[in-house]
């Protein structure tokens, strides 16, 4: 874990009010793994007080990228930053996705901003793996395909691609794969992760999901981010330390 002031190098506006922010942080860039995250202080004042967690979206040399949309006060301030402004960043945090293993194809399932961790994941995935991406959103404007490969799209309102949610699309398309040769990597809204969990457990498909939760510290000292364990009933797991990426079998979503 590192903590330091990192200079903003670029803020890129993608389509649909999605932004990519590039910041210079060599130590983090050289050690962070796909699926791990950063906890970022977006102002120098007491407002907002807490850091904001963001998945690492990509790494380029000494720089990291995060992807975000404007949700509340924190992301609003982030979007208004200028090149050269500094952000205080803590990272790498948490556990990332498995990059190797006994699977042939990495099946990525992303809903909305859940696309954020996958550009870097795709870059770092073992060379021998094939990739299939399923990207969903409420409508056309919520589908983020940035950095994805071999993409199939779903929208709830049918404005783009398959009409329905992304797990329904996945179920439909997955029949062409041998379940034992794939591993699913999911990130997105809780409802999506919940049905992904149900589907993969029922069909005995390997699956890792990246979960979200309100956080204060991001590194295990506040106990603010519990998530129900599937194994131990008397203990919570911590999203920031034991996650944010979990094997679906280990957590209750």
């Amino acid at each position: 874990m590192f903590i330091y002031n990192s200079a903003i190098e670029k803020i890129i506006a993608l389509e649909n009010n999605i932004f990519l922010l590039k910041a210079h942080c060599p130590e983090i860039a050289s050690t962070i793994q796909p699926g791990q995250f950063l906890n970022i202080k977006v102002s120098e004042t007491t407002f907002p007080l807490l850091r904001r967690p963001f998945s690492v979206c990509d790494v380029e040399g000494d720089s990291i990228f995060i992807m975000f949309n404007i949700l509340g006060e924190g992301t609003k301030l982030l979007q208004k930053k200028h090149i050269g402004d500094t952000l205080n960043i803590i990272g790498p945090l948490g556990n990332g996705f498995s990059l190797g293993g006994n699977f042939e194809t990495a099946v990525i399932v992303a809903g909305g901003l859940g696309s954020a961790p996958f550009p870097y994941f795709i870059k770092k995935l073992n060379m021998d793996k094939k990739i299939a991406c399923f990207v969903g959103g409420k409508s056309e404007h919520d589908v983020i395909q940035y950095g994805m490969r071999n993409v199939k799209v779903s929208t709830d309102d049918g404005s783009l691609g398959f009409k329905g949610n992304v797990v329904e699309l996945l179920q439909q398309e997955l029949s062409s794969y041998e379940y034992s040769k794939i591993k699913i990597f999911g990130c997105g809204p809780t409802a999506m992760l919940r049905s992904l969990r149900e589907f993969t457990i029922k069909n005995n498909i390997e699956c890792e999901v990246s979960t979200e939760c309100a956080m204060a510290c991001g590194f295990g000292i506040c106990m603010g981010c519990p998530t129900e364990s599937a194994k131990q009933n008397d203990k919570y797991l911590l999203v920031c330390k034991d996650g944010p990426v979990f094997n679906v079998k280990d957590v209750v979503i």
Partner: protein
Amino acid sequence: MNSVDLTVKIGSLTLTNPILLASGTVGYGNEIAEFIDLNKIGGIVTKSLSLKPRKGNPPQRIVETPSGMLNAIGLQNVGVEEFLKEKIPFLKQYDVPLICNIAASSIEEYVECTRLLTTEDFIKAFEINVSCPNVKEGGLQFGNNPIAVGIITQKVKAVTNKPVIVKLSPNVSYISEFAKVVKDNGGDAVSAINTLVGTSFNINTRKPKIHNVFGGLSGPAIKPIALAKVLEIKQKVDIPIIGIGGIMNWKDVVEFMIVGASAVQIGTLNFIDPTASIKMIPEVEQYCLENNITQISELTGSYSSQK
């Protein structure tokens, strides 16, 4: 160049400097040790320990508020036994005073926890948490009942020779009344303050944002209140005070000491900048140098009443 003596005494407890890490904001020390050298900090207060492990409250446990945060962790902790077996060995690598914070749901449990923990030499003092707003058992809220606080102080003192610090609730009419009860029952010091009761609702679902409904407010938002509570105690009761609440920088440390604190604890700030506590030590020292203070305890209660 002159130097400043930063050591402070809380009863028989000597600290190399007055900056401690607050209960519940550094777990058992492991994670924060990746950011700071624990040998340098004045002391560590553990997450509240209970006799048996506690699972804590379901999520959501925290919510941000203007310049503050609410938490309702529900005293998740590993329990006394696992703490002694699994957690203390890590801390023993360091030369840092360890203060065990104890939270319990009965007077007997407070006593039993203290009895079990006091045999461990590495533990230098106890902080008795009678004031957690997030756990109520059988409707009891010890922190709001001076008689209960008196009994707990007395009974805990009876089973340990180590200093006993009682952590007071700010959610009362007169906090100094409680400080007086602690003193009268043999307590060595008080910590002030624990969090203030607060809540926050989602206006779309109309549900509380925190599962427990009520949570404890901490952070810079509460600093003016915490300072007033410390000053109230200082003006009314002669007992060492550990000041807590919204400290964000060395200036806040000095301000707490001026109104009466002998030492301070850093809480919420650890989440925002885990390195901040350590950085304040030389800054406080520099302030002392510039103000001709050779022993830092000269600062304690040194406010000027002149207008």
